[in-house]
């Protein structure tokens, strides 16, 4: 009995710890005061109206969404073949490829951002947008490789061999047999990479500036100057967008498992 109560207490504390900050942000975003305060006074939807009318936020949101989408897609296109080849073949240099594709997890992203800035932007090789895309793709690539690898490890090679023995080329086997069976791994890799890119600050920090910036960076700079509930309103919106994305993809995943 006693032990049960203790367990319950731990559970409640954990939940509070996890969703407490969100509740505070959620409530503050309706506050009619001009500075962030808790508990808030009054009730208004003005902060939401303000946030969606500010071009600064809307433009950077668009950039962040685009960046998340494109870098995730590129990372999938690169990561799936890499994962497939390293899981199914033995060849010289296999270790090198494995290290290169997982290195970005180890290198401090701030350093990587700085290097990208000096290398590409300051030397006028790529535009800021392209450089951002390169940086984000590199950051999310390891997550694709790992997710897809674990999906591939659970998929028996004999199933592929069956397809080949029945007359399919290796390429057709990959598209007709392997890909449909690692679909779940690919979709979850995509969700993960999208969210990682969307929330990324360190890589973007050096590469962005006035006029072209990602949403998290804009929010950070905004917070330095204005300490009002609009940022809470924006956060509330973002949380609902993320929850929506996760909800939709779980629906898709659930359905794809049944089909």
């Amino acid at each position, binding site marked *: 009995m006693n032990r049960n109560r203790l367990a319950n207490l731990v559970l409640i504390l954990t939940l509070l710890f996890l969703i407490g900050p969100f509740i505070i942000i959620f409530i503050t975003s309706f506050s009619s005061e001009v500075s962030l305060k808790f508990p808030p006074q009054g009730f208004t939807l003005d902060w939401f109206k303000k946030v969606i009318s500010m071009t600064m936020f809307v433009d950077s949101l668009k950039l962040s969404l685009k960046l998340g989408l494109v870098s995730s897609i590129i990372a999938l296109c690169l990561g799936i073949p890499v994962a497939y080849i390293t899981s199914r073949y033995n060849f010289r240099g296999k270790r090198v490829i494995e290290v290169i594709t997982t290195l970005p997890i180890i290198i401090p992203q701030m350093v990587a951002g700085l290097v990208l800035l000096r290398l590409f932007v300051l030397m006028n090789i790529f535009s800021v947008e392209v450089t951002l895309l390169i940086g984000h793709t590199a950051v999310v690539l390891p997550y694709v490789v790992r997710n897809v690898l674990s999906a591939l490890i659970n998929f*028996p090679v004999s199933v592929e061999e*069956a397809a*080949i*023995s*029945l*007359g399919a080329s290796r390429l057709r086997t990959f598209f007709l047999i392997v890909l449909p*069976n690692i679909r779940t791994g690919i979709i979850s890799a995509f969700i993960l990479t999208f969210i990682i890119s969307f929330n990324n600050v360190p890589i973007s920090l050096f590469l962005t500036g006035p006029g072209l910036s990602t949403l998290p960076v804009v929010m950070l700079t905004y917070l330095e100057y204005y300490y009002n509930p609009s940022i809470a309103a924006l956060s509330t919106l973002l949380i609902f967008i993320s929850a929506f994305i996760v909800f939709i993809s779980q629906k898709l995943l659930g359905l794809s498992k049944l089909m």
Partner: protein
Amino acid sequence: MVKFLRLNNISVMYQPGQYVLEKFNLCVEKGKFLSLLGPSGCGKTTTLRTIAGFIALQEGTIVVNNKIYNNVPINKRNIGLVFQNYALFPHLNVFDNVAFGLKMRKIPKDLIKEKVLKVIESVGLNGYEKRLPAQLSGGQQQRIGIARAVVVEPDLLLMDEPLSNLDAKLRIEMRAEIRRLQKKLKITTIYVTHDQLEAIALSDEIAVLNQGKIEQTGTPEEIFYSPKTLYVAKFIGFQEIVSGIVVNELNDFVEVSAEYGIFKAKKTGKVSLNSKVSIVARKKDFTLDKKENTNSMRGKIIAKIFQGDVVLYMVKTGSNLVQNVEIPLKLASWEENEKLNINVNPEACIAFSEGGK
């Protein structure tokens, strides 16, 4: 008779210098069923995968239907593979699983449908076309695995222990089905198994493997009753009873001076006067008796194990050796600790020369 499949002197190694198959020769006639029989690790799967093309040859040639297969890509070889773990396509239903090979061969849709339904019917799973593999039992999955392999009318059907994931009763049912289907379709088949009874029940011919080499090939009768080497004999259920020196030769038989006196046994290959031999027999060919007969050993019963319609006696003979003796239930009146004679008919004994085959 021209051989349909010929493996000429093939050698395979996974690591340099370590032969898994060494100078390997094997022939199969068209439409015949050959089993590769041998213990774990002897190279059965390697042989099968080499024929299929998944493993490269170090030397030798594979000839199928007078065509050299060495450089033919796997997907152009026209083979059917059946796996121990079924290896069905998890995302395709039964119909599409079976249809896969036909689609790859660009056969018209109506014809595909006709062929697929026919073969699904012949493995007794009509009505299951829309099911996913995960919604089938193991036995049903393997039926579909077999249907998927034979529907393309392969030149060769290669099966690697297809029944070893199934329970004993189903295994025996499926044996009969595989044999019936193979005879009906007349597909040249190579079947890998470590189960001697399975090989005997299914095959036209059996090749017994020992560490990457063929020890003996022959019909099931030849392998079962006339093993040519001690290794084959032991593998198909003979046990060593005595060893001794040949003191007399009489037509097909030899007399051997052994620990328990003179033993008479059928002779094989290199057995000759004065050579040292081992004599083997099957446990069901022994009888227990107080009297002494031609081939007789004294012993003491150390265990009596009821096995349904037979009783297994473990009898300790002189030199710390234990013989397993199988006696029909009706005759099993002996009890533990009784001292008696194990007798065995010379017809049921085979002598193999020891050392150097």
